């Protein structure tokens, strides 16, 4: 059997690596990919918890998996728009380094 | 159970990959030669004997193995090595769910001629097909070459566009057969249906008795003809097969994404395209042409008929052989069809390819789903 506590632990580790990627890296593409990694970690947690409480034989519960489908949908939409923003940024400044678009910082 | 899986895997690798793919290279040469009124390649010989050029696949393999693997100067060596592997591995593992035969009972044991009879077989094929994009995309990028880059950009756009249509065009088949498991789809096509029954259902006209005896086999191509045409187009475009070979168009981008590949790396790209031809033939034969079933001869009739003379065990074995041969005949017919399409149609322009996917095939497949649902509702109600 799959040890579900380690599934949740793996989800936490992947989420942390994703947060680390967003905070440390300056390349916008890698930051967007780290956001995808965070969403994947959340999906894993959803499926893990759904496996832990799958309902009974007559009334199965699929909430986790339905939510994962919604997360996948929203992630795809977000990647499309994020890459559109990246294209617009690249056309204006010829670089995807986020340090160069930090004009609104104090 | 593991040994059964290993035996079936080895069998598929020997028959489909190592057996059919060299034959397809020979078919490509000879069929194109016959269609173009020339002789084709027939010079390769072993000890002076040439059999219609059947030794050419062996000559090809020897040539590809002994050529030097050139990696261009500015290329990323790791990705350059990875790309052909990413092209050929999804093509081979797509065979895991294609049923080469039905389910047979030999006394206590049940034998099914499919490596993995998973419940979501068709979804597995789409998932693996979407992984096949990486071979083309990385091949062009890692080659450090303008033409290869153009080829791989075109390949990525074309392949992810046609994945959508590939999925939507079989939703009609899924609605009719109510299952995604390819073995069950083939079993459902093992029957016949009244050919003129649609008159009763759709128009309310009762079928006259002199037409009522006409029965067609319950194949997907008769129940979903538009789905067949759309799926065949989408899956040939996914395989970057002519007339959709924009990514590797010889006259436009020299050789596209496999430009800077030579030796066995190019051999892997070349082989991946032909293995996918067999996969396409297998999937279309299973979904639309009845798979391993023989038309008008359901499995019980064969086993019952032969079993009454020779005994049930021998009858089941003979039925297994007949079903396997029937599947191979359909696969070879689909391979022939793909070859004929390749050598007949000129190459599409890039904007025509994109138009075909998004403006023609996508609305048609949604309309197909709608009409199929309507007809099913009328039949049930």
């Amino acid at each position, binding site marked *: 059997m*799959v*040890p*579900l506590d*380690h*599934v949740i*632990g*793996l989800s*936490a*580790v*992947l989420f*942390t*690596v994703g947060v680390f990627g967003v905070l*440390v890296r*300056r*390349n916008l*593409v*890698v930051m*967007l990919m*780290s956001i995808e*990694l965070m969403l994947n970690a959340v*999906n894993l947690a959803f*499926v893990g918890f759904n*496996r*832990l409480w*799958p*309902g009974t034989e007559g009334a199965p519960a699929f909430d986790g998996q*339905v939510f*994962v489908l*919604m997360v*996948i*949908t*929203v*992630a*795809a*939409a*977000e990647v*499309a*728009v994020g*890459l*559109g923003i*990246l294209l617009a940024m690249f056309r204006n400044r010829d670089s*995807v*380094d986020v340090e160069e678009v930090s004009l609104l910082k104090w | 159970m593991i040994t059964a899986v290993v035996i079936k895997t080895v069998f598929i690798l020997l028959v489909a990959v190592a057996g059919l793919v060299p034959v397809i290279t020979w078919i490509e040469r000879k069929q194109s030669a016959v269609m173009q009124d020339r002789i084709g390649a027939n010079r390769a010989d072993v000890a002076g004997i040439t059999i219609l050029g059947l030794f050419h696949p062996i000559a090809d393999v020897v040539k590809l193995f002994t050529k030097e693997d050139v990696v261009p100067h500015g290329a*990323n060596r790791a*990705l350059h090595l*990875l790309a052909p592997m990413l092209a050929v591995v999804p093509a081979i593992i797509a065979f895991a769910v294609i049923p080469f035969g039905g389910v047979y009972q030999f006394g206590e044991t049940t034998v099914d001629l499919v490596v993995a009879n998973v*419940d*979501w077989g068709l*979804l*597995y094929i*789409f*998932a693996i*097909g*979407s992984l096949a994009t*990486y071979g083309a995309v*990385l091949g062009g990028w890692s080659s450090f070459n303008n033409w290869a*880059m153009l080829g*791989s950009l075109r390949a*990525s756009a074309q392949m992810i566009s046609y*994945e959508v249509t590939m999925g939507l065009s079989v939703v009609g088949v899924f609605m009719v057969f109510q299952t995604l498991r390819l073995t069950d789809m083939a079993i459902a096509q093992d029957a016949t249906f009244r050919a003129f029954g649609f008159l009763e259902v759709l128009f309310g006209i009762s079928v006259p008795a002199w037409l009522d005896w006409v029965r067609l086999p319950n194949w997907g191509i008769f129940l979903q003809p538009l789905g067949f045409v759309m799926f065949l187009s989408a899956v040939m475009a996914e395989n970057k097969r002519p007339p959709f070979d924009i990514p590797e168009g010889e006259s436009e981008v020299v050789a596209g994404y496999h430009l800077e590949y030579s030796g066995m790396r190019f051999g892997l790209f070349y082989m991946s395209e032909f293995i996918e031809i067999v996969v396409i033939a297998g999937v279309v034969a299973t979904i639309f042409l009845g798979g391993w079933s023989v038309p008008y001869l359901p499995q019980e009739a064969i086993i019952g008929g032969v079993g009454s003379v020779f005994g049930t065990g021998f009858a089941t074995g003979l039925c297994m052989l007949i079903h396997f041969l029937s599947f191979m005949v359909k696969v070879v017919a689909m391979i022939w069809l793909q070859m004929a399409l390749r050598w007949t149609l000129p190459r599409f322009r890039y904007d025509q390819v994109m138009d075909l996917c998004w403006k023609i095939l996508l609305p048609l497949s949604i309309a197909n789903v709608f009409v199929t649902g309507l007809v099913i509702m009328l039949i049930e109600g």
Partner: protein
Amino acid sequence: MATILFYAFAFLAVVGALGMVLNFRNTVASAMSLVVTMVALAGIYVLMGAHLIAAFQIMVYGGAIVVLFLFVVMLLNIGTDELSPGRQRLVKLGSALIVLFLLVRFLRVLSGFPEAPPAPEGFGGYREVGIALYTDYVLLVEMASLVLLAAIVGALILAKRKVD
């Protein structure tokens, strides 16, 4: 057997994630590491019995989203960050320490976690999840389609060249 496979996939997932975040030389290699993570996660979903989610993970994430990333990287010829080598080594060391700490923390704790009950028939199958989607959660499906429509329109407008 399932346990061994789970640990193998989990190792692959973490290695792929680290390879994606810590790759300072090549953006395309980062994307391929992310694909390794996605496929490993799909393997874990299959081990847990969620087959439909595994198929969608490979199809949508591994086969479309990362290909979109690769497409943009190739189109714009995007290089990678400009951190100095000393900084890079610091980042790699720091991340390795963090992951090690997290692994030790999470592998020891969570005792007393309840044992997984046996999965009901059809858990994770497309039939049951599909029925649940279209009966109980049909509003979610409609909203998801609206979100996708908004994303399509937004991406088109953002990426279109201004016609002079």
